[in-house]
């Protein structure tokens, strides 16, 4: 599990992956895609769209956080990776 995480972090250092995530984010926030969640139903008492946006947002923040961990461990201290 730990090793997989490290490997993922390695892949995340690619500059392309930043741009891919950025574009992916835009696609998920715009229309054809939004239609999937654009329904007036509730899930566990939460409106679907509310749930989608808030969870998606939290995930995207977490992704940036992972990016930065990978980036700074790669750029500043290669040993730090072991702690992750």
């Amino acid at each position, binding site marked *: 599990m730990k090793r997989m995480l490290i490997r993922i972090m390695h892949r995340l250092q690619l*500059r392309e992956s930043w741009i891919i995530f950025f574009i992916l984010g835009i696609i998920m926030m715009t229309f054809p895609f939004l239609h999937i969640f654009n329904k*007036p139903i509730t899930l566990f*008492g939460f409106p679907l769209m509310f749930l989608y946006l808030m969870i998606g*947002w939290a995930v995207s*923040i977490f992704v940036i956080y992972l*990016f930065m961990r990978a980036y*700074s461990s790669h750029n500043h201290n290669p040993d730090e990776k072991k702690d992750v």
Partner: protein
Amino acid sequence: MSPGIAYAASISAFYTALIFLVAWYAHHRKESGRSIVSNPIIYSLSLAVYCTSWTFYGSVGKASTTGIDFLMIYLGPSLAAFSWLFLLRRIIRISQDNNITSIADFISLRYGKSLWLGALVTIIAILGIMPYIALQIKAVSHSFYLVSGLQIHDITLGGSESGAKLPTGLILALILSVFSIIFGARRLVSSERHEGLIAAVAFESLIKLLSLIGVGLFVTYGLFDGFTDIFSRFKAFDPAAFDRLFTFDASGSSPDSIPTFTMLFLSMGAIMLLPRQFHVMVIENSDERHISTAMWLFPTYLFLINLFVMPIALGGILTTGSTSGADFFVINIPLITGNSAIAQLAFLGGLSAAAGMVMVESVAISTMLLNHIFMPVIVRCTPQAWFPILLINLKRLGILLVIMMGYFYHRIVGDSYMLVNMGLISFSAAAQFLPAMLGGLYWRRGNKAGAIGGILLGSLTWFYTLLLPSFSRSGWLPADLLTEGPFGISLLKPTALFGLSDMDLWSHSLFWSMLFNVSSYIVCSILLKQTEQEREQVHKFIGIFEQQPSSRHPETKRLSKPVTTEQFVTLMAKFIGETEANRAISQYIGNREINAQGTVSEFELPNLKRHTEKTLAGSVGAAAAGAIVDSFLSDMGSRMESVYDIYSTVRTSLDQSRESLFVRLKASEIINRTLDLQIIMDDLLNLLLKEFKLDVAIIQLKKDSDAFLVSSYQGTHRRPISSSHWYTESRPYLDMVYRDGKPHFTNDVRQASEMLPLDMTIAEGIVSFAHIPISREGEPAIGILSVFSKSIAGLFTEEFIGLLSSLSGQLAQAITIVQEMQAKDRERDQKELALLQNARVLRDMEIAKQIQISLLPNSAPEISGIDLAGRCISAAHVGGDYFDFFRRNEHTVDMLIADVSGHSVGAALIMAEVRTLLRAQVNSAHSASAILNILNSQLHDDLTRAELFITMFYAKYSSASGKLSYSNAGHNHPIIHRSSQDSCIELDTEGLIIGVKTSVVFEERSIELISGDVLLFYTDGLTEACDSEGEMFGAARVCSHLGAVSDLPAKEIIDSLYDAVIAFSGTRSLQDDISMVVLKIN
């Protein structure tokens, strides 16, 4: 005045004091060098100045009316954070390298420090920001009424109807202005970070977050029973509204609903391009590394502050029963439910949000206003001592102006828009900078014309389709402009331009403005050319991460007339004050060399000019700084002119080094091809003449004396080189270069001639020249390379001089090698000659030896009754020993032995002379003493001249009488061994050495020899031969040995004596010649 007002006012005052305290503390910490602001968390919090009262109040308002799409305003920046690592880092790097003060500064710098572009961006920023500031004033003053329990817009003093009415909005605006001036415009240097301001903003960000979360918790868990409770209750209360609020309106049927993409795009642009965002993100950034934390911390902040917006909105509708006044649910809900403490908290949060935004925004805008509107006018005037005071007050005025414009917009547009919609007008304006900004960072061809055209057209469209309708809607402009179009032309209706109807206001405006903006940016950039100044900036902006910090960009400009450091300081002092100017210059000089007069080298001047510009740019913006320095230089009669491109091809830094490499390569080819120095020097000079724009090249080598010898002269005017030739005028330079071992060059000969007459040189048409010492690293110069150009002043760049020096070094190496080889050759020749001579001498000596041997008698004359033998063994090739026999008649024989002092050729010659004389005299003189006498008198002069002398023993023996008569000239005494006796008889007579006195009396004696007598004549070599311990052979040994061998024939006696001496001395090589003559009487 109601108690509510007093209460609200005192809370506000208390809060304001708190903010002051925070700001003062941060400022104090910075002054003492322990900044609390310079850390990533404060940086992230300061970015949250993005969340204004629009977020605080407006989000709830929008959530209540159009639903969840308000989140797009925050999701956009969150997404944009993905790009910060490369986009924002690049912008920050560029800004810090160039002392950028604002976004207008940034854009104008990219497009060649364009004054027009800076002014344009500033005007658009001011216009664009007006609604935004108005929004803050509206929100705060409205919330103030709510908290203080009033419903009117003006506070009436004294309670009477006729009493003076005090507009809260105006008071608020004034308070905010004072606040901003105190924190944002204390000093003029705008590129410097404002730690107090940032601390206040970060603190306010914290307050507004806590406040909104507090209200959210109160509503969600205090009034209701968690999220699901609110959602289910609201669904039960109004199912249709629930469906509407939690879905996006994809059809665009409602005029107020804005497509998600429009909001996403606008907010993504706004997070970077709004002047205040640019200010906190870029200008106030203290460390690039803070970005990486801010990238996730800032989105987290946005996430948290929006978490409770939806519950508050729904709770507000549930509590009040309608969506009216939804913008202020955050305050209204606690008030209605009777929780005034929560309401106060909410009010403070809203105040924080508004105050932070207004402060930063007004500071950012006033900087732009000063640098791009006021400065271009001011720089046309002559700098005065009171300029710093004027400038700082203009900046303060700018802050006031910006806030007041917001206030008046608020008065005009007022309540006709919701908060969010007012903010979006500003976002649309900021979006106009996007093409020029992104293009400037990544597209090399983007040019000034494109940027101006794009921003101008885009913002005109924005003004027409968005700002104008906002005036019109509030009734300030005739309404039929919107419904009918200008002059009734429906195609030009601002809200449906060119017939594009049925679109919401913002998407419509965004579409048209971006279309015009982007297309004119691209079209102009492709069709028109960049100026040189722009190209220089393009390199700085796009190559910022490719450039190695160590590699220096070769200088392409020079100042036509040198300016001293002092003059630059004076110039700077006029704009930023004396202290700042001195600080800036000492910072610059720090690690650079300057000479005794305080001037920097010619190559450093363009750097100093750039530094001056950069320093000034920190206060007045790059465009104005450029203008200031340029006008200063032109007043001085100096200007920047292009350095002549010494290489024929168009150069980039890569090509240039290749050209330089080519010349070096050619030079080493020339040097290695031959050892003929003349060819090397001629070819090298011709290479220089061919590759560079030079007209004359001379190599002069130092001779032993003081003079220089022209060793090679190439180029024009090859007239005979004489003392009246024009180049002799440069002699003082030559001496200087020779003495210092450093190159000297003059890029403009007329200036140099002020110090030193160079009339003939100027008459020749020379405009620039350089003298390079020819020397190897660390050694004194051996000559000087001089180059002259008739066509180009400013030919000699640092780099070119470097190349010439390097070639001179190679040449010095070649000359030294050739000279060393010549010296070696000479030495070898000399040695050979010496050897040859030696051999010749040896051969001569050998010949001389042979001759000398042949001069000695090879056999003794045969006389009956005696046995006679003689032998000479010389130590050297030739010697001074001599013996001879003369047979007078059949009974009589003369014998002699002589020793010329020394063993030299001279001795041998004297010996030959003696022999010749003797042979001549033998027949005339008969007695031994007479012969010696004659010899002495004849040889005296010769011997004295040669500093030689002769010892000689002369004897005459007659076998008939048996009598030996003899005479001695200082020779060692011969001995006679008589068989009857053990000892030997010494033959002794008086007589001086020949060659000492002119007349000497030689005694003559005679002795009767009997049979068996052995008479031995010898030279001192025999008795003085030494053994290894230094003991001499001695006369006694000779005598005893003679006795032992007296029976042998005379010849064998000699051999035996010789063998005995060799055996005694233990060596075959003699120290002295040995000659012996033996006479044995039978």
